């Protein structure tokens, strides 16, 4: 039965949206909707309200989850503004013969360097060489956008220490029809990802592929090469990468 008051009409529309009208009344509702433009306008407004309420509740939910996740992320990130510890008294240095001092320094430097290349993360440069990979104008010729997205996502996952996410994406880039620069960069990122994932043998195989390729285009600095070689070795000795 068509409601008579505005309140009843509101309840009628609500019941329709909630699928709570009996079949006969539902048909009546839809007839009214077709034939009464004023009523149709009212229903359209109520539909708009439903959509906005949906959006509001969703935004509220995302906001709650987001707040939790941000707390987690920030707890995981290293604190960069911690004040350095300053000793109150400098210990007095005793007199040591020069040769002992030099030998000690050399040993300390060796230990420090070994520790550094063992423990420090591999630098992953975020900027890509514009010249080598072909410049801006030709990028749009890339046959596959998916490859490109995989490349960027894979690199991001390596940088955020999520090798399980990075490996399949970077493997896909290697199989893609993209410029050699991107394939080579992907091989380097993949080596690091394998190491992060405790897959030392795969990391070594990929690194050997890189070193044996005279046309390798991605620029890896000397220190990073030492780090990866050493970290692969350590990972193979101890059965893990870190």
């Amino acid at each position, binding site marked *: 039965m068509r409601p008579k008051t505005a*309140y009843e009409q509101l309840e009628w529309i609500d019941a329709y949206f909630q699928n709570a009208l009996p079949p006969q009344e539902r048909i009546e509702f839809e007839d009214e909707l077709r034939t009464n433009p004023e009523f149709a306008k009212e229903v359209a407004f109520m539909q708009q309200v439903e959509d906005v309420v*949906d959006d509001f509740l*969703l935004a509220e*939910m995302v906001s709650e989850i987001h707040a939790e996740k941000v707390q987690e992320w920030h707890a995981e990130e290293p604190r960069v503004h911690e004040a350095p510890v300053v000793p109150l008294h400098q210990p007095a240095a005793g007199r040591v013969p020069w040769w002992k001092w030099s030998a000690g320094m050399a040993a300390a430097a060796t230990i420090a360097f070994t520790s550094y290349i063992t423990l420090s993360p591999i630098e992953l440069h975020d900027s890509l060489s514009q010249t080598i990979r072909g410049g*801006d*104008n030709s990028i749009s010729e890339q046959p596959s956008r998916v490859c490109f997205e995989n490349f*960027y996502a894979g690199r991001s996952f390596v940088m955020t220490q999520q090798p*399980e996410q990075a490996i399949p994406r970077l493997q896909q880039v290697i199989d893609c029809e993209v410029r050699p620069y991107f394939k080579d960069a992907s091989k380097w990122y993949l080596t690091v990802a394998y190491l992060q994932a405790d897959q030392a043998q795969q990391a070594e195989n990929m690194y050997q592929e890189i070193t044996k390729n005279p046309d390798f285009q991605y620029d890896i600095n000397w220190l990073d090469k030492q780090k990866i070689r050493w970290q692969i070795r350590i990972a193979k000795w101890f059965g893990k990468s870190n």
Partner: protein
Amino acid sequence: MENFKELIGIQSQEKLLARLRSKDRRELNEAIRDVYSHHISPVRYFVMQNGGNAQDADDLVQITVLNFVQAVRNGSFQLQEGTTIEAFLFVLAKNRWRNTLKQRGLMRDYVQEMESTVADVDFWEASAQRIMEEREDQERYLKLFNLLGERCRFILTAYRRDGLSMKEIARQMGYDNERIAINEKYKCLQKLKALFRYET
């Protein structure tokens, strides 16, 4: 590894989309958490590496997830074979971030570079653009809804959020009976209608 394969597999992505479309708020909540846990970190990292700080990255993540879930729920987003949810999130975020950088006058080389990569017709790019435009409209209405005040917002959302009947809403609001709650709801709707009319 098996879990991971399942996670990035198309079938699993379809499952996630189905959960994001769910009317069950608990299931939706868990699905959004999955988006945060498995698909969004490249976006955050991307912003921090492209002229943004941690706050910018967090803000962009939130709006990207919200827009994505809205697009999934209203049918604007459809998964294509060979593509990933994550790639789409990335394009969505990239577009928003590009606009932010433009507004700040910080258009940098790498942003121009990314523009050149997507200059041709691209499904994700077009889709992301369309969703952003749709969202601008919806966000206007959402702002108007927020102008209603807490009491009206509670009355209009309590059924959908907590499944409360008008009787229960009346009790929670301290009204004597259900009729008063319905009357209040009507008044809130009239207020909202006036706001919407003013906007259009």
